[in-house]
């Protein structure tokens, strides 16, 4: 099976869906002639021309609203935000129009649109450019929120998102673009709302999605070396949320840590923590733990910015707590 990057997987999905459906087009800042700020759309202008690969001015609210109107009228836009930090300028259009037009019209219109781009911290970018904003979008009924962490998942889920008749927030990440993984050559799609158990285990459930997946996999490897078998549930999609897979894993391991790079307050992690408490209470041997970013804006300093985010050590400490082990029981080798 070919090994490709996350970036290439996203591009393949866009390319295949544009080839499949004339109504699909890509618009955003630098997507056409510049070939994408992160080179996701490389080559698409040459292949599809300026009618379907469209450079916009720097005017997030405006072009996001134009995408929404085009979707309402029957096209299937992919709107690229250079990063999700800039999506905040378009938030009114997304929340008040994309998420509401179907409702306010009593179901007369659909808004089949994908908003995609890198979300969450990269490196050395300080607080305006390092935000993980999924909790904000997940809060809004009327939006779907998808956050794949592997090239395989990214391609299959983006193709599904483009074919979906609702507004989909599709979260990528600058650091994930160069991650590699196996992606089959043939056509495939992955349904929204299906978590993927990335590792089987009996001792503790580690729930995560998007970029922290690698960190969680690394932690699970360390735990395995110390005789603890962690099960990793990669949510892949936040809305709809695969509660069945979450609960069946927690009911098996009886312990759960949620790893989420958002801020903790009213977050995806805190909501899932509540769901588990509500639905798996009798199965839990310990309170659910969450490992999120610290509740602070992101500093520029590298040592600080790394420590703001979830780390292997923070996850190990949380696993110790849900297993009632003394702090420091699970150590990385060399420590």
């Amino acid at each position, binding site marked *: 099976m070919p090994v490709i990057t996350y970036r290439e997987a996203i591009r393949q999905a866009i390319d295949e869906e544009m080839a499949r459906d004339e109504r699909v*087009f890509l618009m955003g800042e630098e997507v056409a002639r510049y070939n994408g700020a992160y080179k996701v759309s490389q080559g698409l202008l040459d292949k599809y021309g300026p*009618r379907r690969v469209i450079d*916009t*001015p720097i*005017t997030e*609210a*405006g*072009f*996001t*609203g*134009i*995408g*929404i*109107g*085009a*979707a*309402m*009228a*029957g*096209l299937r836009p992919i709107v690229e935000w250079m990063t999700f930090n800039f999506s905040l300028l378009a938030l*009114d*259009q997304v929340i*008040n*129009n994309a998420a509401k*037009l*179907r*409702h*306010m*019209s*009593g*179901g*007369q*219109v*659909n808004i*089949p649109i994908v908003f995609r781009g890198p979300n969450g911290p990269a490196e050395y970018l300080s607080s305006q450019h390092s935000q993980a904003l999924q909790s904000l979008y997940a809060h809004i*009924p*009327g939006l*779907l929120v998808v956050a794949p962490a592997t090239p395989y998942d990214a391609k299959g889920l983006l193709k599904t998102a483009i074919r*979906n*008749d*609702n507004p989909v927030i599709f979260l990528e990440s600058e650091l994930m673009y160069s991650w590699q993984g196996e992606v089959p050559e043939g056509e495939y799609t992955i349904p929204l709302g299906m978590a993927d158990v990335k590792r089987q285990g009996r001792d503790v459930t580690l729930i995560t999605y998007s970029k922290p997946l690698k960190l969680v996999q690394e932690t699970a490897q360390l735990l395995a070396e110390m005789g603890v078998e962690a099960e990793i549930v990669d949510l892949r999609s936040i809305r709809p949320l695969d509660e069945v897979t979450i609960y069946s894993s927690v009911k098996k391991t009886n312990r759960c840590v949620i790893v989420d790079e958002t801020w903790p307050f009213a977050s995806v992690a805190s909501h899932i923590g509540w769901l588990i408490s509500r639905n798996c209470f009798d199965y839990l041997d310990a309170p659910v733990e969450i490992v999120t970013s610290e509740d602070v804006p992101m500093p520029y300093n590298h040592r600080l910015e790394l420590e703001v985010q979830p780390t292997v050590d923070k996850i190990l400490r949380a696993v110790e707590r849900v297993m009632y082990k003394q702090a420091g029981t699970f150590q990385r080798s060399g420590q």
Partner: protein
Amino acid sequence: MDLQNYDKGFLLKLLEQMLLIRRFEEKAGQMYGLRKIGGFCHLYIGQEAIAVGSIAALDLKKDYVLTGYRDHGHALACGMSPKAAMAELFGKATGCSKGKGGSMHFFDTDHHMYGGNGIVGGQIPVAAGVAFKIKYNAENGVVLCYFGDGAIHQGVFHETLNMARIWNLPIVFICENNQYGMGTDFRRVSSVLDFSVMGGSYEIPAKQVDGMKVLEVYTETAEAVKLAREEGTPSFLEMKTYRYRGHSMSDPAKYRTKEELEEYKRMDPILMYKQDLIAAGLLTEDEYKAMDKRCIAVCDEAVRFAEDSPEPPLEAMYEDILA
């Protein structure tokens, strides 16, 4: 305007549409007073010539209308059933938006009326998106996008005019300048008093239009629609008008004088146009009275329909969110 240049049926239809909107809005105000309608209810009384005159320039098989929250007039002018409109105000299941949108969110996609937006200026880029679809599919349609003087300083207005021009979208932006953004006189908050100069910043043809004269609105809009349809050139029309009622039902409109209101009522779009038609021998006072009776009957019937219609079932709250 030489009335003889127009088909009599067309001229009378304009009058009857304006009159229907007037009577509908009066009835809505009355029903609001009886607490049959709640929340925000922005009446269109005084501005009827704009929706009626401009929408008359469209072919709604291929053209589209999007507006803000003062949307009853546009919906009726597009051909929405007054029953569905009144039932929506009553929050009933038979309303145009199944009782989920209310006064600010009238939609009727069959008549290409795509809302009804409650955020000041929020519909402007969305309307350009509909025009984008027309261009993308090489269709022959045009979009009319309405908003008030309150929306003209929103960023999305300026962002959208720029993109409409660089992409040559078939859209006509219509600012209904009723002179007050809620309680604020536009002269207090605008760096320019002639909004049409703003078109020049984006090389978009723009002009001021007397929004109290239905035929002037019609001819100016028709010209802009032709430009959009044939050349893909967007236009911007500032239509000067006046609303007789407060911003919404809770607004006693103390920020303006009685004299000002009375002065505008003397320029009433329906009254003036009616007098023109009578003077031209195209209408008699009796015919006008019969027309008015018809409009009142339609609105009474709409109220009966709304009253008799069922509330939406509770489970409807979970419907019409995701496709």
